[in-house]
């Protein structure tokens, strides 16, 4: 959405006083503990309930019992949830800083539309039917749209509004294409209606290994951008005055966000709201410093994603509700609450 910056984000990232830093560090440790708990829950809870002892046995003394097999299955799903969640949170943080828009998310730049259009093309025109086959198409689709948005947005002269407008425009055209293919090709509709909601249930070791290198590179790149993006968030002129290389920072941010979100979407389908909401919530207690926002977002996003996944397995037993649906149903109300709470909301 074309919503311009809010004043709170322009505020300078003042060095935190020592006691605040301690509080933040402790908070980070607590977040890690919560994440571990959710991860264990994600392995233990499902159509078949496992005790913590069974989970432990399956993880560290695998002897091929039925419970151990269940643990193996759920482990892949949990690991993918951890990785994809962290990637979505990080790419959201980067995009919000890059576009100076607290509501930016990967959908805004057309990455989801690109991935979806590529997957529907793969199904309809190349006859790809395996989920592992989709991964590369989805990733290439997201990457191609990322590059196109960057180019149309003016590459070196890209501004937040131009990038958002280019992303919205490309999304619109691609969704038109997507719907046309789904109407004309029954096979595409049969598969796409499950892919587009976003799910972790198809996770396998193979998927994880396919996307892992991209996630690793993207994460390192994103973390390295924290400091320059802090400067960019203060406005172009201030950033220049502070010696930040605007063009290089923008190009690298776009690259990092595309790689992270593209890989996550390739593995799980388009999952909305995690990348939008978590950095937004995190910012409300860390302040605008990306060096704190990023680690918090990378830890709390998987908490939301895995928590939603567990919830989706529980609410409609023995069937399950896809994680992308749960994140939106939880995320929507939280988002509205945040919007209502904000004091000054000027366009």
């Amino acid at each position: 959405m074309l919503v311009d910056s809010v004043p709170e984000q322009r505020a300078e990232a003042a060095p935190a006083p020592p006691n605040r830093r301690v509080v933040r560090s402790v908070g980070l440790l607590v977040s890690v503990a919560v994440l571990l708990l959710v991860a264990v829950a994600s392995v233990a809870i499902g159509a078949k309930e496992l005790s913590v002892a069974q989970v432990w046995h399956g993880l560290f003394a695998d002897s091929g019992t039925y419970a151990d097999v269940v643990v193996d299955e759920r482990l892949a799903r949990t690991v993918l949830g951890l990785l994809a969640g962290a990637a979505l949170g990080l790419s959201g943080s980067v995009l919000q800083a890059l576009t100076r828009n607290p509501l930016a998310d990967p959908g805004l730049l057309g990455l989801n539309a690109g991935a979806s259009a590529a997957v529907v093309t793969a199904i309809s025109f190349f006859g790809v039917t395996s989920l592992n086959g989709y991964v590369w198409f989805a990733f290439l689709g997201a990457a191609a749209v990322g590059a196109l948005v960057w180019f149309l947005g003016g590459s070196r002269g890209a501004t937040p509004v131009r990038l958002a407008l280019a992303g919205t425009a490309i999304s619109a055209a691609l969704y038109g294409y997507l719907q046309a293919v789904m109407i004309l090709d029954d096979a595409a509709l049969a598969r796409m209606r499950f892919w587009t909601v976003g799910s972790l249930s198809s996770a396998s070791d193979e998927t994880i290994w396919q996307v892992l290198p991209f996630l690793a590179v993207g994460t390192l790149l994103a973390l390295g951008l924290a400091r320059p993006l802090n400067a960019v968030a203060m406005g172009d002129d201030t950033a220049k005055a502070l010696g930040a290389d605007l063009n290089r920072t923008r190009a690298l941010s776009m690259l990092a966000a595309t790689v992270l979100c593209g890989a996550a979407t390739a593995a799980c389908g388009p999952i909305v709201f995690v990348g939008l909401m978590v950095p937004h919530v995190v910012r409300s207690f860390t302040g605008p410093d990306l060096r704190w926002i990023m680690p918090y977002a990378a830890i709390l996003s998987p908490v939301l994603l895995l928590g939603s996944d567990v919830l989706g397995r529980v609410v409609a037993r023995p069937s399950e509700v896809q994680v992308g649906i749960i994140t939106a149903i939880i995320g929507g109300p939280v988002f509205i609450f945040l919007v209502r709470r904000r004091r000054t909301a000027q366009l």
Partner: protein
Amino acid sequence: MAPRGGVRALRGPGGASVRLDVRALVVVVLLMAAAFAASVVLIGTGDFPISSGDVVRTLFGEGTAGQEFIVNELRLPRVLVGLLVGASLGLGGALFQAVSRNPLGSPDVLGLGQGATAGALVMIVLFSGSAAQVTIGALVGGLVTGALIYLLAWKQGVHGYRLVLVGIGVSAVATAVNGYLLTKADFVDAARAVVWMTGTLDGRDWNQVWPLLWLCLLLVPLVLANARGLRMMEMGDDVSHALGVPVERVRMLLLVSAVLLTAAATAAAGPVSFVALTAPQLARRLTRSPGPNLVPSLFMGAALLVTADWAAQRLFGDGQLPVGVVTGVLGGVYLLWLLVTERKAGRI
């Protein structure tokens, strides 16, 4: 305010005067002509082509019996639904954009389309409902969503910015519900749902024309009567309050009208994307007039939708792809054009 070229004031006896924007008037007349021409061509298009001359003759009651049947019973209602839906979406979009003071504040973005879709999908997927039931479901879904967005955005008045953001949140939840319903549907229902979700005029008859026509006849004069207040409100709440506009009352009235128009249009044809977004913007560029451009947007919407339906039939063959595909792609092209021209002009 400095006088602008093309704006005339007609002065009558006793000091009465009417402000007349010549350019806007010309644009409205041209758009009406375009909508009429596109309608005539669209009526003539199909498995049994009829020349434009014959279409016009038949419309005035001078055609053969066969032509009378095809035009009046089969194709005219479809075109009328298209015109009315386009007009409602154009006017509704202009109202939303003016009230939210955001060029992206269209019903697509605010989630009205998604809410109406949720209502329709419940009918299609859970009840395998008839066309009439789907229409009612969509209408209820759209109205409930509109009320929900208004209530959730209310906090000592409805601020345009908050309205857009709350709309985005509601829209995301509705999208998730729609995705879930689609995964739960059996295949035939899913195929029907996807066509409905894209927006289509296929199979529309007189039953859809009348309710839409009455609603437009009721709401359009009401909206235009309050347009003066809307013009003031574009300057901000405080200024318009000082100028004597009852801001919250006018805003509520116009929003309710916009929701009704959009929900009725969506119920009749599905959530046809981008007409509500682009019609007001294109109208504004043609009239070069600031302000909400309500009447030009209305006719622009009608002309756009009928032209897009004709293009869908000509490009893909009869009954192959619905009009929503064309408006979606057109919307994307329009935004790209906007991007390029605004960049050249150095505005963004």
